C-alpha cells in the first residue's frame, strides 16, 4: 500500500469511527431525555421557583412582590425559626449517631450464618416498608398515658411518662421512632457493603494472626468506609427532612419542642400563608444539607480517593 493510499485508508477509518461514537452518544441522550424532562419540570423548576420566592413577599393570593434579602434578614432575628433550627439539629445529631453502631452491628450479626437469619432479617426490615403515616399513628397509641410503653415500664415499677405531652420527652419520643425506622434500612446497606468484602481478606487476616476483633477493626471497618460515608450522608439528609412523623404525632408541640424545620416551613407556607418566608427557610435548609454533605465527604475521603 502506498503511503498516500494508507493515509487515505486511515482517514476513512477514523471518520467511520467518529460516526459510530456520535451515533452512540445520540442514542444515549435519547434514552435519558424523558427522565431529564420529568426531573426538570417537577424538580428543578420548582426548586428555582423556590429560590425566586425566597426573595419575595407572597401570600398565595396576591402576586409575589420582590423584597430582596429581607426574608433572610428577618429569619436571623426570628426566635421561632432559631428554636426550630435548634430542634432540627438536635434531631439530626441524636437520631443519626445511634443508628451507625446499631445498623452496623445488626449487619455484622446477619452476615454470619444463623439459622433464624431470614426470618429475623424480614422482621427487622418491617419498619422500612411501613408507611410513615401508619407508623406515626401506631406509635402515638403506644406512647399514650395508658399505652403499651407505659404499661411495660409499669412492670418495672417506673411511673408513666407523658411521652408526647411533655416538652421534655416529646423530641426524644420522635427521635426514637427515627432510629427505629432508619436502623434496618441502613443495616441492609451495611450488609451489602459487608458482602462486597472478599472472603480472601479474612482468610489472609486469619493466617496473619488476626482474631475476630482484629479483623473487624483492621479489615472490615476500613473497607466499609465508602459504605459508612454513604450511610452517614443519606441518614443526615433524611433526618434533616423529617416531616410526617412530627406532623402527625405532635404537630410541632408541645411548646415547639418537636417543631423541626421542614414542619415549620410547611406551617409557615400553608397555615400562615407566608410563601416568601417559607421559601427562604427552604433555601436555608438546602444550603445546610449541601454544606453538611460536602464536609462529610471531605472528612471521609481525606488524602485518598474513594475506592
Amino acid at each position, binding site marked *: 500500500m502506498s503511503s498516500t493510499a494508507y493515509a487515505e485508508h486511515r482517514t476513512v477509518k477514523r471518520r467511520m469511527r467518529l460516526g459510530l461514537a456520535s451515533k452512540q452518544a445520540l442514542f444515549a441522550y435519547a434514552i435519558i431525555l424523558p427522565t431529564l424532562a420529568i426531573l426538570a419540570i417537577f424538580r428543578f423548576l420548582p426548586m428555582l421557583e423556590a429560590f425566586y420566592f425566597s426573595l419575595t413577599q407572597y401570600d398565595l393570593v396576591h402576586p409575589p412582590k420582590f423584597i430582596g434579602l429581607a426574608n433572610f434578614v428577618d429569619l436571623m432575628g426570628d426566635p421561632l425559626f432559631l428554636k426550630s433550627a435548634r430542634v432540627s439539629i438536635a434531631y439530626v445529631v441524636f437520631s443519626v449517631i445511634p443508628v451507625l453502631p446499631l445498623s452496623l452491628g445488626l449487619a455484622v450479626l446477619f452476615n454470619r450464618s444463623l439459622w433464624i437469619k431470614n426470618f429475623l432479617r424480614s422482621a427487622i426490615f418491617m419498619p422500612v416498608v411501613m408507611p410513615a403515616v401508619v407508623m406515626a399513628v401506631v406509635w402515638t397509641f403506644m406512647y399514650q398515658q395508658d399505652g403499651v410503653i407505659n404499661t411495660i415500664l409499669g412492670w418495672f415499677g417506673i411511673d408513666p411518662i407523658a411521652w408526647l405531652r411533655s416538652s421534655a420527652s416529646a423530641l426524644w419520643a420522635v427521635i426514637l421512632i427515627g432510629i427505629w425506622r432508619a436502623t434496618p434500612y441502613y443495616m441492609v446497606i451495611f450488609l451489602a457493603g459487608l458482602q462486597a468484602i*472478599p472472603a*480472601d*481478606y479474612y*482468610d*489472609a*487476616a*486469619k*493466617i*496473619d*494472626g*488476626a*482474631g475476630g476483633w*482484629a479483623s473487624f477493626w*483492621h*479489615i472490615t471497618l*476500613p*473497607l466499609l*468506609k465508602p459504605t459508612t460515608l454513604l450511610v452517614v450522608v443519606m441518614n443526615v439528609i433524611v433526618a434533616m427532612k423529617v416531616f410526617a412523623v412530627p406532623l402527625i404525632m405532635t404537630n410541632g408541640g408541645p411548646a415547639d419542642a418537636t417543631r423541626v424545620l421542614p414542619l415549620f416551613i410547611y406551617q409557615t407556607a400553608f397555615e400562615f400563608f407566608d410563601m416568601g418566608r417559607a421559601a427562604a427557610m427552604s433555601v436555608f435548609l438546602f444550603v445546610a444539607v449541601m454544606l453538611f454533605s460536602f464536609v462529610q465527604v471531605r472528612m471521609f475521603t481525606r488524602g485518598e480517593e474513594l*475506592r
Partner: protein
Amino acid sequence: MASIEIRAVNKAFGPTQVLHDVDLEVANGEFLVLVGPSGCGKSTLLRMIAGLEEVSGGEISIGGRVVNDLPPKNRDIAMVFQNYALYPHMTVRENMAFSLKLRREPKPQIARQVEDAAEVLNLMPFLDRYPRQLSGGQRQRVAMGRAIVRNPQVFLFDEPLSNLDAKLRVQMRVEIRSLHQRLHATSVYVTHDQIEAMTMADRIVVLHEGRIEQVGSPLDLYDHPANLFVAGFIGSPSMNFVRGVLRARDDTHWVEAGDGTALPVGGSPQGRDGQEVVYSFRPEHLELGATGGGVPAKIQVIEPTGADTHVFCEFCGTQICAVFGERLSVRPGETIFLQPKVAGVHLFDAANGKVLTNGIGN
C-alpha cells in the same frame, strides 16, 4: 522449618465427600506440588493444612505437632493466595507488617524485617504504594513478601501464578523456585497447571476426585505413570491413547488396535492374551517411517512451534499427536507412516486404568 504429615484425612462439605483418606508426607524443606484438575480437592487440602477449613476426619501435623484444632495463627504458616488478597487500604509496607504488628513486635524490628523482605523481593521502591498502584507481578511479589517477612515454618501457595500473563508466569516460577532454594522452607504449592508442577516440584502429588493418584518426582511421573489419569494429565501435548487387545504368541507380544493394526510392544508385559488394553505413547516417542514402514497416519493439522513441529493425525482410527524435533515438509491431508518407539510404549488395563507396563527404555 518443619515436616508435614497428613494421615487418613477426609473432608466433607455436607453430604459431598471431597477428600477420601488422603495420606501424605512433606519432608522438611521439600517443595511439594499438589496438582489436579479443578474440583479435585487440592485447594481444600491446602486450606486444611492452613487451618482455614476444618478437618472432617484424620490428622494433620506440622513439625510433629497435631494441628487439627489449632487456629491458623498458631500453626506458624504463611500463605500466598490466588488473587493475592492484599489489603487494599494498606500500603505495601503495612501489608507486609500486618502480621508482625498483630504479634506486637517492637516497631524497629518490624521495620527491619519488612525492609529485609522487601530487599529480597526488589520491593524497596514500592513500600509506600497501595496495592492498586502496582502491576500484577508486583502484587504477586508483595504477597510473597507478606509470607516470608515472618519467617514461617511452612509456606502454602494456592495457585499463585494463575492471574499472571504467560511471560510473567515463567519469570515468577523461576523466582519462587530460587527463593525456595535460598530459604529452604517446607512448601506446599497448589496448581492445576502441570507444566508449573513439572518445573517447580521436588515431588508432585496428582489428585483426582479427592484421591491421590500418584506421588513422585516430576520425571518419575512422566516416565512411569501409575494409571491412565496420571498418564493423560502429566505432559504436554498429552500422551496418546489407542484402544486395543493384547496378543501374546510364545514370547512375542503386540497389541491389536481396533482396526486390526498390530502395534509393537517390547518385553513381556503383565496381562493375558485377549485382554483389553490402552496402548499409550508420548507424542515424542514416534518415528517417521519410510513409505510402507510403520502405521499409515493421515495428517489433519500441523502446528509449527518453532522449536518443534506438532502433527495431529489419524492413527488406527484415533486422533493422536506426534512431535518432531525437525521441521517437516508435509501438509494436511497427506499420509505419513509412524512407528511408536517400543521403549516409550506404556500399556494400561482398559478395565481399571492401572498400568500393565511402562516402556522398558525409561
